């Protein structure tokens, strides 16, 4: 008996996002304000302290806004925290963001 031929449908559905252009990068970090975003796991507090040390040595005048200013980006109030970021970045004059820890 010949095997039946099937016409199988695609089980996914279309993505609802197109390509979003990324922001223009900075010319230098010298004198810029960098915000730290942390999900409060995997030693991010130590990692951010080390990055501050290294960046300040290379770019005098670079300023950091601690993760403590923003709250955890991965917890029970993460949606509120993320929603508040544009306003806080504007108020604090943030030029760039470092976000961690993806572990």
């Amino acid at each position, binding site marked *: 008996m010949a*095997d*039946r*031929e*099937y*016409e*199988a*449908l*695609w*089980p*996914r*559905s*279309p*993505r*609802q*996002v*197109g*390509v*979003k*252009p*990324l*922001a*223009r*990068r*900075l*010319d*230098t*970090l010298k004198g810029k304000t*960098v915000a730290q975003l942390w999900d*409060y*796991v*995997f*030693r*991010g*507090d*130590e*990692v951010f302290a*080390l*990055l501050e*040390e*290294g*960046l300040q040595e*290379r770019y005098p005048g670079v300023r950091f806004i601690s993760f403590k200013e923003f709250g*955890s980006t*991965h*917890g*029970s*109030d*993460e*949606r509120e925290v993320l929603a508040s970021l544009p306003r806080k*970045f504007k108020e604090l004059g*943030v*030029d*760039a*963001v*470092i*976000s*961690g*820890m*993806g*572990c």
Partner: protein
Amino acid sequence: MPTSTLVCEGFLGLAGASSVGLGMPNLPVALVPGHTGVQSKDVLRRNILEVTLDRVVGNLTSPPKEALMEDEPAARAIVCKGSFEDVNEYFEANELSDGLPIVPPTRDKVEAFLRSTDRDPDEVLGIMLPDSRAATVWSVAVNGVMAGCRPEYMPVLVALAEAMADPYYGVEHSGNTPGGETLIILNGPIIKQLGFNYTQGVMRDGFRANSSVGRFWRLYLRNVAGFLPHKNDKATFGNTWRVVVAENEDILAKIGWEPNCAEFGFPAGTNAVCIARYTGGNHISSVSGSTPEETLPYIADAMVRQHSWQLMFTVGQGMGTLRPMMLLSPIIAETIAGWGWSKRDLKQYLYEHARISAEQFSRILRDWTMKPIWDLKEEAMLGRIPKAFHESDDPKRLVPMVWEPDDFMLAVTGDLMRNSVYIFAHNGVLGYPTGKAIQLPKKWETLLEKGRRK
């Protein structure tokens, strides 16, 4: 705003897959070598200053790569024509199946599923992260066919997709490290109408309704939400999908306890699904005693023993979002209820007796798992956690596992004549309990009758 995302070595693949779903396939990330959790302070310092720092600078100051997205088939496209084996080879090769043979989702089979709902096939039930795909009724039917469901299961499948898409549940976290798996609990007359097992071996495969609906969950999570192992699904070990657990509503009616769906405001008699993610579970055998006072100390002790790092969802990352689930076999529930105890009384008992020393609580989270700097005393004094967590400075004082008695969840199911319970350790905010009512089509009785005749 220029950004740099710090990503440990093992998560670069996930970062790449997630950024595509977010529409930023060229999102720059900064490598953190190895895993910070096992590095000495010296090694961490060297890795960050000698490797990560340069990447961060590059991310923030160099133009990103060109953004490219691959073309995909249209929503109702036929992606493969061929024999049963050809279709299965194609689906496996294109990561569209779970590794087991699937039922080829042909148009006639999908349309049979769509006849079991009054919902529009193009209706969008929600947008699923991380892939940002629309959860459509159509795609529910396609994956339901693949899973081996019967067409009349469709109303349950739609309710599950709605629950999965509910932001309250947090589907975007489904690929996290502990690999917790969703447990579906079913309530309502539909249990008997569709032949779900709700007695002995309720979590065992062998019952088409329980098994195929459970499989559908994982296929939908893979194909529409986008959780593929080695990509967006970063479970360290993982679990296979769980079969659906249906409650024994005959026993509930007999003892006067509310069904699990009442947690979400649905009264007894409502057809409803409840989903939540659990990292682990354990069978608690030989629960003995003829009174609650004799029976419950063992259960409270077992409740504590099933939880460790998950306490981070009580205080820490989750803040009051730990919702342990306990299945009680019918005779255990009947024994407790026989003394006039309500579900609420049982939850209150667990709140008061399933406790852990403050010292151990802190040791698990602060010392052993290196969760961030916090302190029960400080959190309580700042009013961020209930006072029950700091009633004295004694490190040996017992503190609750959860914020409120109602955080415990209970369901009655399993073997009618066995004295057991099963306790699940919950995943907190990363798969929070979510319930949805099941909408039946107008011609439900006719559809059921047709299904029975087949």
